[in-house]
């Protein structure tokens, strides 16, 4: 019987400086044991998260930012905000780190087959959406879905994540990408303004579509009603929530949203589900 609380040993393989202010870095972790790797990829679905564990610093949840086909590693994009994330930011290639997961439900990508997918992200919350987009855009999966529209906003160009990949997405005829930054910058050829406004401008068609929104709470709050306005059904609007967590497996009681636990019943919820829950966020 597995112990829900036991981290598996991982090794930091690669560290990517994502933003020019160094506040966001991506860490690619490889498995030290084959059985762990097998178990992970058997279970993994984009939109899930893991608890990373550093003994002495504790544990914290991070969305998974890699698609399974990318290789035998798991990527996390970590913003340096507290003592745990600061420790990760100061770790080096070759360091070991504990991991538990994948946890939570993830995006219901099987149900989305045959539909258009509108991906809307802001800031570092784009990480699981990046994994989702990479998954869908892979040759093996792309034909299962209709039109793909990605809308991604960051405060400034220097704070945009995954720059090489996103740049390459502009070359792909089978997707539509809209990037935005909050205030104008010289040399920026894309949208300027807040994500909700960009969504309004782009106005993706709600017909046979699902929309996925992940971003800072304020962005999500203003984006959801715009999608409803455009004509998306609340059942077809998905978002991923965050709250402080300890166990990540629905036991410690911390991350509840009414009767649901974000760690176990979520983190992905439809707007229709959220409309039925007390917004204790």
């Amino acid at each position: 019987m597995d112990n829900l609380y036991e981290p598996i040993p991982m090794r930091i393989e690669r560290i990517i400086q994502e933003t020019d202010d160094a506040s966001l870095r991506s860490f690619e972790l490889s498995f030290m044991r084959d059985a762990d790797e097998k178990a992970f990829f058997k279970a993994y679905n984009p939109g899930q998260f893991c608890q990373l564990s550093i003994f002495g610093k504790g544990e914290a949840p991070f969305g998974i930012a890699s698609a399974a086909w990318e290789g035998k590693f798991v990527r996390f994009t970590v913003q340096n905000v507290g003592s745990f994330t600061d420790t990760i930011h100061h770790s080096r290639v070759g360091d070991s780190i504990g991991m538990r997961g994948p946890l939570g439900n993830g995006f219901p990508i099987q149900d989305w087959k045959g539909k258009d997918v509108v991906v809307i992200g802001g800031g570092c919350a784009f990480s699981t959406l990046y994994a989702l987009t990479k998954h869908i855009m892979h040759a093996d999966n792309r034909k299962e879905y209709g039109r793909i529209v990605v809308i991604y906003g960051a405060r400034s160009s220097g704070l945009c994540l995954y720059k090489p990949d996103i740049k390459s997405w502009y070359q792909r005829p089978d997707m539509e990408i809209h990037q935005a930054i909050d205030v104008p910058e010289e040399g920026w050829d894309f949208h300027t303004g807040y994500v909700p406004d960009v969504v309004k401008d782009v106005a993706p068609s709600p017909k046979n579509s699902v929309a996925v929104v992940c971003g800072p709470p304020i962005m999500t709050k203003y984006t959801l009603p715009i999608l409803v306005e455009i004509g998306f059904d609340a059942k077809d609007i998905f978002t991923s929530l965050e709250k402080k967590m300890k166990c990540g497996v629905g036991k410690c009681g911390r991350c509840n949203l009414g009767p649901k636990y974000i760690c176990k019943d979520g983190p992905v919820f439809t707007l229709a589900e959220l409309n039925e829950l007390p917004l204790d966020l």
Partner: protein
Amino acid sequence: MMPKLIKKIEFDKTISKWFKSYDVIAPVSSKEGIHFKRIKDPKEIKLDGNQNSIYPPKNVFLPQSEVLFTVKNDNYEMPDQAPRKRIVFGMRPCDARAVWLLDTIFNKADDLDLYWGKRREKALIISVGCASMCSNGFCDTVGSGPFGKDGSDILITELDDAYFVDPLTSAGEALIKSLPEADDTQGKNAKLIQKGSVIKEHQAADLPRIREKLYEAFNTSIWKDVSESCLGCGVCTYLCPTCFCFDIVDEIDRSERVRNWDTCMFRVYSAEASGHNPRPTKAERTRQRIMHKFAYWVDNEAASGCTGCGRCISQCPVNLDIREMVQEITSLKIQ
């Protein structure tokens, strides 16, 4: 299953027999009041009328502080669980029901908490019903009762010169198979005592209605009103038999990862690294506590998460009474 009998003069002998194969945990007297501990002598057992322990016996399965792992070179090792089987004797039905409720969190086959699970599978719960209800108890209004059966392997009713011992599970039945059977008169007497134990004026709480009213009141300022005098000490949650929230912390000097009881009544409980806190004041925290008991448990298990033990009422330093709080919130007229 056939009810059995332990004559009071044979009580010590019966309990002593269990010592061979079991650790027996039972209520004993201390200067702070009654508490549960492992006993070595049946004479230590304190079954005084309807007096319950100050601490709920949930710590038998969910210790206040327990080592999850000893950590060496990033290797997380779970400590060995006590191999001996245990009998928890003298639990009250409110607390046994709490274990039954907590099994829905920790003891699910596909999602087992190993620490709880290993303790639980090796334990028998022998409850002693309360012939009269304790002063702040309201178990009979929240789905249980002074002789409620949920969670117990055996339920005991105290007669004049004997204990009427009613097995409720096959494990309970096996433990007492060598005891003499109770006769019909003893059975009738036990029934009478059980019937007489409830307070006639008590009315069963209308849980669906309470749940609905609490949800309606979610965004009102009533939570500020009912929590005005709350000190935020958290004693209501620490002493609650169904509160199970825990924190996980690393004790570096001991090389241990530990879990400790935690409480939603503390500000830091939900404070996030960004500085955001979804429950910044005691109003939101009180709302969480009350709604968890009377709305979220009802949603998830169709049962009240409060077993009516009354500890949070007896031990609150400012005399807050969860019954009155629920009453006040649910009588709120919302436009």
